[in-house]
């Protein structure tokens, strides 16, 4: 019961992106198209899950003074694995993601979950927590990318959806629109969840 709550909570009610405002940095730049957004979401899920698992296994052996640097090394190693994998098997997507794969290291969600959860919980719980938070992040990314690709170029996953009658609104492809879409998602989310509203 507790495990399933751990899993569903980060997906909506306590979503890392729109409630805790973490990991925005890389969240927005890769959302011009659906494909890189999906790949980025899954990469973060992988890194988040395994860094949580590894840090949770190591949690009793690390003095708290040096834990930040240990976390950075573990996370950076996992990100290098992801980066090399993408370069080998999905070269086009890895080109589109450019520096943002490297920036998973500095993604506050990964660091935040390790600090807040993995250092105080058992490995399996931490792993589930990592997967759930990664998926919560991926969900927002895909949602933003859906609107930007659909209205910005009239396509989804590169397949034309809106035909010739639709003039693509190229403003949607520019960075500022990603911020405005996230702002609107937060607006809707907080209208539905009144307890999150600031006074």
């Amino acid at each position, binding site marked *: 019961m507790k495990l399933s709550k751990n899993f569903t909570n980060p997906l909506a009610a306590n979503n890392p992106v729109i409630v805790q*405002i*973490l*990991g*925005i*940095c*890389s*969240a*927005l*730049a890769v959302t011009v198209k659906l494909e890189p957004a999906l790949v980025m979401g899954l990469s973060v899920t992988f890194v988040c899950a395994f860094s949580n698992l590894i840090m949770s296994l190591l949690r009793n052996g690390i003095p708290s003074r040096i834990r*930040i*640097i240990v976390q*950075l*090394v573990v996370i*950076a*190693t996992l*990100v*290098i694995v992801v*980066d*090399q994998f993408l370069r080998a098997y999905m070269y086009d997507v890895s080109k589109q993601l*450019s*520096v943002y794969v*490297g*920036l998973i*290291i*500095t*993604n*506050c969600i990964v*660091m935040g979950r390790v600090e807040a959860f993995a250092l105080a919980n058992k490995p399996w719980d931490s792993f589930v927590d990592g997967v759930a938070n990664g998926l919560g992040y991926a969900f927002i990314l895909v949602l933003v990318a859906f609107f930007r690709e659909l209205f910005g170029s009239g396509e989804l996953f590169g397949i034309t959806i809106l035909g010739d009658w639709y003039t693509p609104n190229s403003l949607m492809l*520019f*960075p*500022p*629109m*990603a*911020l*405005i879409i*996230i*702002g*609107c998602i*937060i*607006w*809707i989310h*907080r*209208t539905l969840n009144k307890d999150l*509203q*600031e*006074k």
Partner: protein
Amino acid sequence: MLNLFINSVFIENMVFAYFFGMCSYIAVSKSVKTAIGLGAAVTFVQLMTVPLNYLLNQYVLAPNALAEGVDLSFLSFILFIAVIAAFVQLVEMVVEKFSPSLYNSLGIFLPLIAVNCAIMGGSLFMQQMVGTEINSFGDSVVYGLGSGVGWWLAIVMMAAIREKIEYSHVPAAMKGPGIAFIITGLMGMAFMIFSGIQL
């Protein structure tokens, strides 16, 4: 060089064009005074780490740099983040010693500069631009300064706007991060007018 500076401050602004450092940008931009302090710290760290990482990239990581036939570029994530983390630790100690009031007002965000995407992103972009825009050590210093100043400018402007917005009627669900995102989006659109400037 002037062109590179103007480019990194206004046109390729860290916040408006790449969304770097959004987490602390949204969280710390509630008062102008704190924003100026954090902006100064970020600019300083950026100014030091980008040239340091440039040297590291040129003499250790680049293909054939260390020895003929040795390509260590896959290690760049882990080395860059180590340099940044060590440097932030240093800045933290200096600020704590010489300006305790600033240290207290920045709180948790000072150590978090280490995981601020703007810093890591600056170094990764520098690595990508080697050979095109950045051709010498001087260029990397200019780029580090410019990208830091751009971030500083953005967070101070944002803090000034948010101080005024305290007195206006924002829909309850939009208060806090929601409206901050929309404002950033609008500021980003305003910054788009700079694109294409050549000096």
